[in-house]
């Protein structure tokens, strides 16, 4: 199987070519079959690769396949090569699996759209880019995938390009991503200058020797890499594009902005764990930013009124959790949460898409309510997703979130303060998730009459994905059951060789190990989840007048949070407006003045010179003769004088 590893990214690319070139002219059925078919086949191939990987012994689970030499330029040699190890195996399964479900869902959701072929072409291209990113065996190829997913994100966010808000959101996403990419590029250049290669394997083998522990070089490189990750994975300070990205179609939000693209940053940090472990300062930065983002975004999500915005901020918050996990050295836990989050967040987004579809386009939760009985399957799956993300015991999110919180508390890189932040964020998560659930599905119906008439459950293509994801959200966590609950934490042990291949940090992840402490924290997590759900029940179902009273009592805070702490406005004043002014200035002075001026000057000069010189042609032969004789004499004189 390993020598057809390249099929995994190649299949979606083929789908992109077909749908891109002929998508407009063929019937929608063909487009759907091609698009979903290639991703489905890619998933099958990923399964095969996974099975073959398992067949290898633990130490051997590292397979590379070099496809061809890409850039042979003197000392700089980059190949297009793929690398399969436990980490990338998990990623390709998540990307192709969840991707396949979302492709199928899109058939139903987008069936009346005009740009049907274009949509699926972009979706396939995205899948190709994401798979390239996770399968790459060197930084440059990973960067190609990195940029590719950024591009597809732009294309898909601005899918309805004649809507100004969508076009602006797409542009904002791309530009903010670019800032992060700048950091990534700088890091790549530093790495190349230090190691002479961009291949992961070579770099990570050399790293412990070439980089001093905690040294300036290691810290700089990893901080720059992390800057790229904050851009792609929407952490502080570059998270501002993700909420706006909800302008795109809902399946896009599910795939790109929940399950896959935003996880690229986490994957990258996990992949470069060797470099990060050599720079404890950077790891601390990662953890702190992760925790801060988690709580910050969760707080904004408490008061949002658009169903997708709540989920967007939830995504930013959960990504913070993943970075928190990586930042305390628990890379496996971070990836575990990445996987479970992919399941339930995609489920929640697709569910919200189902709700929006049922309500003929309504997205404001103040205008929903009481629709649970009309859309039973949507409600049931949404409930599962909400329980999972809140960390309700037994479901997927419980295991992964608890793992991260435990490691944060006990690891030598972690701290109790960070645990507190994480716990608070968990409380907020449970609260806002159930606030959303109650406001959308329960209580009295506040739906506009027109829409109420057309309320209907979604078509089977959409429901299929919801059901599968619900099942995964319930059972997906069982691969990572921790030891204290009697499990073997298969997930962590599966990923272990990927994280201990190059060097083993002195048991950073196994600090305090008292069992009772672990049990206490576990129960605390459960209590927090239940508390959050209870509070939401009280405030939105039992005594539904409380939220309004609170808002009236504390208008300042409420408005601050509702307006996302005015971060966008601050950025605008600090960066966007000066940037725009600078561009205008440069445009007027430099582009128009100097560049255009130079070109025009050349033209003008030629014309003027010509007009001046033409006067030599007087028409008098004798003058011509005079000139000839004069010049002949000058030449003769010159030679005489030599």
């Amino acid at each position: 199987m390993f020598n057809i590893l390249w099929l995994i990214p190649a299949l979606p690319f083929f789908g992109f070519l077909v749908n891109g070139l002929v998508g407009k002219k063929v019937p929608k059925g063909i487009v759907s079959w091609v698009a979903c078919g290639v991703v489905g086949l890619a998933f099958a191939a990923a399964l095969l690769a996974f099975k073959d990987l398992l067949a290898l012994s633990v130490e051997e689970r590292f397979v590379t396949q070099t496809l061809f030499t890409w850039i042979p330029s003197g000392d700089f040699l980059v190949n297009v090569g793929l690398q399969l190890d436990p980490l990338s195996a998990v990623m390709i399964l998540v990307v192709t699996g969840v991707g396949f479900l979302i492709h199928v869902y899109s058939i139903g959701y987008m069936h009346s759209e005009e740009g049907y072929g274009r949509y699926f072409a972009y979706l396939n291209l995205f899948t190709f880019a994401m798979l390239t990113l996770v399968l790459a065996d060197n930084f440059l190829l990973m960067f190609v995938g990195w940029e590719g997913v950024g591009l597809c994100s732009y294309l898909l966010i601005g899918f309805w390009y004649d809507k100004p808000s969508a076009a602006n959101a797409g542009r904002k996403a791309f530009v903010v991503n670019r800032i992060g990419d700048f950091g990534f590029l700088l890091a790549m250049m530093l790495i190349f200058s230090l190691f002479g290669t961009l291949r992961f394997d070579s770099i990570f083998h050399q790293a412990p020797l070439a980089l001093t522990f905690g040294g300036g070089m290691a810290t700089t490189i990893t901080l720059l890499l992390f800057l790229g990750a904050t851009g792609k994975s929407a952490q502080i300070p570059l998270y501002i594009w993700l909420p706006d990205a909800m302008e795109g179609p809902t399946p896009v939000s599910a795939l790109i902005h929940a399950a896959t693209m935003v996880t690229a940053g986490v994957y990258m940090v996990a992949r470069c764990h060797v470099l990060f472990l050599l720079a404890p300062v950077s790891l601390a930065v990662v953890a702190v930013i992760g925790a801060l983002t988690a709580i910050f975004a969760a707080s904004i999500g408490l008061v949002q009124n658009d169903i997708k915005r709540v989920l967007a901020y939830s995504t930013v918050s959960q990504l913070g959790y993943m970075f928190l996990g990586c930042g305390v050295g628990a890379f496996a836990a971070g990836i575990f949460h990445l996987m479970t989050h992919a399941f339930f967040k995609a489920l929640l987004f697709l569910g919200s898409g189902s709700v929006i579809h049922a309500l003929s386009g309504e997205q404001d939760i103040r205008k929903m309510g009481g629709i649970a009985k009309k859309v039973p399957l949507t409600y049931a799956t949404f409930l599962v997703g909400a329980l999972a993300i809140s960390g309700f015991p037994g479901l997927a999110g419980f295991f992964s979130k608890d793992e991260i919180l435990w490691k944060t508390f006990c690891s030598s890189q972690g701290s109790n303060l960070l645990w507190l932040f994480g716990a608070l964020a968990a409380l907020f998560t449970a609260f806002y998730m159930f606030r959303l659930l109650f406001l959308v599905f329960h209580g009295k119906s506040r739906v506009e009459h027109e829409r109420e008439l057309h309320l209907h459950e979604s078509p089977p293509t959409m429901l299929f994905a919801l059901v599968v994801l619900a099942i995964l959200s319930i059972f997906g966590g069982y691969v990572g059951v921790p030891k204290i609950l009697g499990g073997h934490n298969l997930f962590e042990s599966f990923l272990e060789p990927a994280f201990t291949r190059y060097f083993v940090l002195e048991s950073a992840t196994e600090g305090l190990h008292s069992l009772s402490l672990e049990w206490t924290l576990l129960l605390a997590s459960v209590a927090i989840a239940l508390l959050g759900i209870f509070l939401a029940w009280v405030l939105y179902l039992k005594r539904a007048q409380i939220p309004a009273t609170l808002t009236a009592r504390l208008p300042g805070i409420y408005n601050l949070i509702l307006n996302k702490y005015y971060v966008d406005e601050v950025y605008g004043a600090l960066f966007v407006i000066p940037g725009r002014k600078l561009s205008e200035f440069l445009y007027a002075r430099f582009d128009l003045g100097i560049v255009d001026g130079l070109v025009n000057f050349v033209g003008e000069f030629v014309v003027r010179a010509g007009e001046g010189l033409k006067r030599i042609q007087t028409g008098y032969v004798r003058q011509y003769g005079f000139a000839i004789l004069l010049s002949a004499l000058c030449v003769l004189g010159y030679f005489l004088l030599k």
Partner: protein
Amino acid sequence: MTFNLVLWGILAAVALGSGLAVILIRNPVYCALSLVVNFFLLAVMYLLLKAEFLAAIQVIVYAGAIMVLFIFVIMLLNLGGEETRDRLWALRAPAFLLGLVLLVEVVAALRYSAFVAENPALSFSLAIAQPTTIGGVREIGRLLFTEYLLPFEITSVLLLIAIVGAVVLSKKEAP
């Protein structure tokens, strides 16, 4: 010796005089005639330089054919002198100046060039030219048909072209 020089001096003076007459006299017929005189004198010079064949050719072709053609055309066009005011009279002084400069340069070239240094016969001392016996028609003819055959043939083509050109150019427009 000196007799030769004196004779030569007289011939040179007349040649110069007729040359000046060509450029200064108003009436074009007189200019042409003085040029004929110049050509005759040059023929004599050639004789002095032992180029007998060329002297003969000079008289026959130049003085006899070309100048006749000139006179024909002058008569045909029935030209008078130049009556109207010269528009470019500002060119006169610079022209003379240029002529002077030309003269100076050529003399300087003669005096100081490397060729002169190698050939003492050319120096300004009154060295005597080697007496050599250069042949006449026979020798020139031999050269013409062996070494210089190609230019010879091309010249004949050139003359043909000139004939054709002259005929075409002077045809009257068909009525």
